[in-house]
């Protein structure tokens, strides 16, 4: 079968995707368009993905015991061990068409099989790539973090928190009340350490907000938000900063090697990034307090 090669660069990490013709990556992966790149622009080649597209569901048998099972905005994800590494089965929540990915243990070589009857096939491919990318980058001093991120004054600010805490709302309030603030990513930016400094990158994955920005900023601060009846900011350092950052990071919890790399990276981030926790209301005082507190830490 004739395939066409597409190369994308996310956070400086190259991803090569081979799609069978006549399928077009621009149509299947619209959020990746800003990340289309020449091979020359990529600083680290991360992963290669070969896609096949079939009419029907795959034949799945002898999958063994499920390692992890999650339902989130990517869909219903089931992860299994496989002699080469992992097999991932993805469908919409509650069943439906099934798509599979076979990945080496380090998630650098991927074989994806999509089912063309699913109108969400492109979204499923994007989710497979997100899953693999978020694990593969752990070997390169980087982490995929569940956060809403804004940029202001040439720096990025990330807001973490449990679902429904108001991460996106907090970002919107920054844009309303702190001049010259823009959204970088609303769900899944990448944090990457390079030459001892932390940088935040936009990605093709941004949750419900279509904000796919191929830009990078040095990190100005990361804040874990918690809803509260009054606003207060608490600086976190050392283990406190580690604990604030860790729950937002993507990792296969059962995989010792991946987890170890994640802890190393988060440990380093905890020491080089301004980190805080904030009890907050969804109001202008919360964002001016947050902005001022992070600026104060930066000056010290």
């Amino acid at each position, binding site marked *: 079968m004739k395939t066409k090669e597409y190369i994308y660069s996310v956070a400086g990490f190259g991803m090569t995707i081979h799609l069978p013709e006549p399928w077009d990556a621009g149509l299947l992966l619209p959020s990746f368009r800003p990340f289309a790149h020449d091979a020359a622009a990529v600083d680290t080649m991360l992963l290669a993905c070969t896609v096949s597209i079939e009419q029907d569901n795959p034949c799945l048998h002898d999958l063994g015991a499920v390692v*992890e099972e999650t339902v989130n905005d990517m869909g219903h994800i089931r992860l299994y061990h496989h002699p080469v590494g992992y097999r991932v089965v993805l469908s919409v929540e509650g069943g439906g068409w099934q798509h599979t990915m076979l990945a080496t243990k380090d998630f650098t070589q991927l074989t994806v099989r999509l089912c063309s009857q699913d109108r969400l096939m492109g979204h499923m491919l994007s989710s497979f790539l997100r899953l693999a990318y978020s694990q593969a980058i752990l070997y390169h001093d980087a982490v995929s973090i569940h956060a809403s991120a804004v940029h202001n004054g040439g720096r990025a600010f990330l807001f973490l928190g449990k679902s429904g805490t108001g991460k996106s709302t907090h970002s919107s309030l920054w844009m309303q009340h702190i001049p010259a603030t823009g959204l970088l990513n609303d769900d899944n930016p990448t944090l990457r350490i390079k030459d001892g400094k932390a940088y935040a990158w936009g990605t093709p994955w941004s949750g419900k907000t279509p904000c796919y920005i191929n830009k990078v900023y040095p990190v100005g601060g990361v804040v874990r938000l918690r809803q509260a009846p009054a606003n207060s900011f608490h600086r976190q350092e*050392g283990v406190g900063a580690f604990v604030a950052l860790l729950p937002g990071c993507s990792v296969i919890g059962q995989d010792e090697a991946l987890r170890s790399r994640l*802890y190393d990276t988060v440990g380093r981030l905890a020491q080089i990034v301004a980190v805080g926790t904030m009890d907050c209301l969804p109001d202008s005082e919360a964002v001016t307090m947050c902005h001022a507190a992070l600026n104060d830490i930066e000056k010290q």
Partner: protein
Amino acid sequence: MSDCVIRPKNNLQLRKLGNSYMIVEVSAENVNMSNVYTLNKTAADMWQLITEGEHTAADLAGWLCSKYDVEPATAQADVEQQLAEWREFGLIF
């Protein structure tokens, strides 16, 4: 208990973060959750000892006495207290 060899749970690596030490463990109930334990320098050294070799509580008390100016009875009690805490958290057997 002082003559039993202390066995730490597998794959719990001690990490240094600035001036602190910690052990990160994936929660048994939920792989998306982690437990983070902080240790002071003495506890961290003690953890290092039990992960690198076979030691009993009496060995550790002896080590503590050789390192710090402390009475054997106090050292024994301190070691037992630390081990009881780790045992309660399931970090050692």
